[in-house]
């Protein structure tokens, strides 16, 4: 092995302490890679590790921490329960809680029973809380029109119609009424997931999809397992079957 002896310039020993002091006082020059990236114009581009680490933590719309609040481009989840297990009532409670506590704007796509939700259920929830219906007018919309979640046209129209309202929470009640495909097929599950995120992303909203499994609990299993970001099961205790006053509105 050869060793090379480099000749030191005159005065090198005296300049060394100054160089050391300079290193610790002057910020190092940043390379091009270290500069913060601008937000890409395309929806693709991803996050660097440091950008991902600085994302805000998961927050919730309610104190029970069952309804997450999107911190990045919306989130999608499911609320699964048999007929008569108060799915719609639970959704309305979560929505009104979010309005009262956080001033959320709620879009309720009542595909199963728009009339009942708009005329009776929401009014009953507000009456029980002592809240005036007019008090939440600016925060609530019940969508009564038929809606196909998998239809690009329907989604674009829906997003355009509510662009000004800008909902923070979107409830879809129920899945089987907004999907015109075999929800047990895996590809349908993927399309449901993509469509729900496509609905959530423009508003940065939380989308909650209610679903009634069939008696064998096989219905919608594929769709839900692909689509969910969070999944909650609703169950009624102490009473079985349909509530008589809900019989018309809850039957498929």
């Amino acid at each position, binding site marked *: 092995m050869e060793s090379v002896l480099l000749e030191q310039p005159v005065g090198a020993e005296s300049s060394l302490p100054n160089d050391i002091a300079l290193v610790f006082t002057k910020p190092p020059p940043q390379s091009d890679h270290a500069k913060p990236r601008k937000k890409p114009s395309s929806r693709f581009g991803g996050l660097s590790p440091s950008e991902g680490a600085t994302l805000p933590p998961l927050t919730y719309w309610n104190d029970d921490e069952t309804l997450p609040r999107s911190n990045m481009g919306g989130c999608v989840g499911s609320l699964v329960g048999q007929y008569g297990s108060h799915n719609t009532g639970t959704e309305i409670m979560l929505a009104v809680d979010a309005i009262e506590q956080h001033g959320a704007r709620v879009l309720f796509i009542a595909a199963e029973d728009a009339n009942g939700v708009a005329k009776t259920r929401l009014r009953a929830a507000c009456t029980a809380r002592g809240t005036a219906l007019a008090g939440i007018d600016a925060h609530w919309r019940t969508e009564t029109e038929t809606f196909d979640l998998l239809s690009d046209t329907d989604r674009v129209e829906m997003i355009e119609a509510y662009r000004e309202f800008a909902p923070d929470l979107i409830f879809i009640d129920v899945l089987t009424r907004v999907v015109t495909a075999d929800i047990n097929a895996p590809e349908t599950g993927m399309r449901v997931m993509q469509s729900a995120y496509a609905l959530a992303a423009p508003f940065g909203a939380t989308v909650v999809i209610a679903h009634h499994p069939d008696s064998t609990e096989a219905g919608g299993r594929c769709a839900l397992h692909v689509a969910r970001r*969070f*999944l*909650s099961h609703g169950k009624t205790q102490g009473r079985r079957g349909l509530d008589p006053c809900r019989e018309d509105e809850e039957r498929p």
Partner: protein
Amino acid sequence: MVSTHVEKMKNGPDGFTVRYKTELVALETDEMGLSTEAPTVRAMTAPEVEAHKAKTPPRPDVAAENATDGAAIAKLERDAPDVLRALRQITKPMLLREIAPMLDATADDADAKDDEKGTPLASRIRRLNRLIGDTKSPGVLAPFTAPRTGGRTSPHRLIPIAPSTVEDELRTEDEPSDAPAS
């Protein structure tokens, strides 16, 4: 009541259940005089949560149920002294039908009836099974059963109990608290 179980929550806690209260809210009465009611869901109040928790039975103390200490032996001696004597005679885990001949005969002449029916000792084995109980309500003999290796249908085997000199000495007739015989 409505139970909402959070099965999955990405980047957040899951696997917990939140319970809500349901109630009917009367809205108005129609022309026929019938009131319109609608179900609502609301958060439970603190007293309601406490009342609900009070309904939940306490978790079984499995360690205490399986203990083979002096207390368990004392219970067995109180309820089935002949079984305790039999378990002190054996030296290895034995089947119920092998232990049954060591037990006392019942007063209702059940052994003779079993012999007539061609099922000898069946009543004694049934008695042992009652003393063992089941998983939901284990009996006094349950701690002294060997683990069932062949599944739920495998026969029970009882484990031996080492003879205790202290317990033998503490007979009812000459416990230390009794007055000495004159």
